[in-house]
């Protein structure tokens, strides 16, 4: 389980953020005492830090700069300013990503997952029940059988696979698709899922994707 540290001085926001991350299966630790954030950042030994820019004692950007000199733990900056300057400064100080409030929760989770994935060297090819998933070629291969997936189908399958055994809501699927410039509507999503099911069935994987009424889909 990945450990995430939250440095955010607004209590309500911090609480909800912890809740969101815990629900998504991260272990969360949030900073309560802002008199010495830096030493807490070091001692926490977390896998990722969410760092607010406007903090009571010390500016988040200054903290980041100090922290980056010695440690390479991934850091995502959170801020409510809509200006470009903070973004440029943060990135130049070595932030791994930068998200403005109010963030879309699904996108926040995606970004966190992406940053964590980047920091752990992961193999290019994933496998699912004897099927090799190649996201680069956009295809599923089983033995000498190959099924080519469309971009949409691949995005959906990838998300389900990353959360194998967990329910993925339609909302999350939609957010990911839209985030990848596929502006499809509700009906199109259903069509894509049923096509994906057929393709999986052709590879001998019947009923791999289950529908959970009013919740979403799950890859078994």
């Amino acid at each position: 389980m990945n450990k995430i540290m939250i440095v955010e001085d607004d209590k309500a926001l911090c609480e909800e953020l912890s809740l969101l991350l815990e629900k998504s299966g991260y272990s969360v630790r949030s900073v309560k005492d802002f008199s010495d954030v830096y030493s807490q950042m070091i001692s926490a030994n977390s896998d990722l830090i969410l760092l607010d820019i406007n903090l009571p004692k010390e500016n988040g950007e200054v903290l980041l700069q100090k922290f980056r000199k010695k440690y390479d733990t991934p850091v995502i900056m959170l801020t409510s300013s809509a200006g470009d300057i903070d973004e440029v400064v943060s990135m130049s100080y070595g932030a791994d990503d930068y998200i403005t409030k109010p963030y879309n929760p699904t996108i926040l989770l995606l970004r966190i997952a992406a940053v964590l994935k980047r920091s752990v060297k992961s193999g290019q090819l994933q496998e699912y029940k004897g099927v090799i998933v190649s996201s680069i070629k956009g295809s599923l291969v089983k033995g000498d059988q190959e099924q080519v997936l469309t971009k949409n189908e691949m995005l959906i399958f990838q998300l389900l696979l990353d959360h194998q055994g967990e329910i993925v809501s339609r909302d999350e699927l939609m957010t990911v698709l839209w985030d990848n410039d596929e502006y499809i509507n509700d009906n199109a999503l259903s069509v894509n899922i049923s096509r994906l099911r057929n393709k999986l069935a052709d590879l001998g994987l019947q009923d791999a994707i289950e529908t959970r009424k009013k919740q979403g889909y799950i890859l078994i």
Partner: protein
Amino acid sequence: MTIRDYLKDRLIAYFIWAICHAITIIFLLAYKVGGQPIIVVTVISIMAVVSHEIWNLNRRKNFYNIIRKTTEELDQKYFLSEMLSEPDFYEGKFLCDTLYSCNKSMVENVNKYKKKASDFREYIELWVHEAKIPVASLRLISHNNLGVVSDKVNVQIKRIDDCIDNVLYYARSENAEKDYNIKEVSLKKVFSNVAVRNREALQLSGGNLTTYGLDREVMTDKKWLEFIVGQLMANSMKYASVKRPLEISVKAKEVDSNVILYFRDNGIGIVEADLPYVFEKSFTGHNGRSNSESTGMGLYIVKNLCDRLGHGISVSSKENEYTEFQITFARNEFYKMS
């Protein structure tokens, strides 16, 4: 200052001189001085007046002409007093001094208001910053408690967020400070950010989105352009037709080395008579009268931001059929160099 003006101005002085001279001649005649001495006195007197007048005319003429020419040429007329060198006659000196103190008082006054405006703007920025925090909390609360209402709640949260952004960008667009950052930006990225942010609202309204040719880079400020496109999208949803599902189509084309972004919807459109005024402040027009959400500020801010970024924006529409906005990005090689 022409000679005519000058002569006209001095008419009374000549009149007085003529009377005095006439009296002198009467006296001379009374003392039985006649003939040649009178002519000599007259000639000397005329010579004195003419030479004095020529000298006087010259130095004034130079001074006044400089004033007139500089005022005509100056873009900001109030710089006049800084452009003048002090003349050697009293009225000129007096005028210069007065201009100088008027200017000084005006500059002080303008600075007072500048300070007030920038204080207010700073406060707005701070306020926006503060207001975004509870909005962020609300979004997370809604996400952490998924249910039937959360979609609707999200749409309303989005509306609050849009209103907050409106205030921020209005404050930014009205102020002279240059706080945009122009660089090469992908239209695709900008549009997808806006689309994701508006997804819930679009889906609830049953809208459809198609894009074409957005794989282009333009020189702009990313955040500002996102706000602009977001405004257009919000408008499309606000003025959707009830007769058919909303279709928004966005495409980009290269025309004469400019990139043009077309943003088109199939909404209720804009009445032809209203078209020339849609970018004006507080103009709500025909659509505004039938929609209470119109403030007449959205497009005004959009136009203002476009002007400051150097983008052209225009609109075409047919009532009950479509509305199309065109944003023109100049392919500015100058920007790229820096």
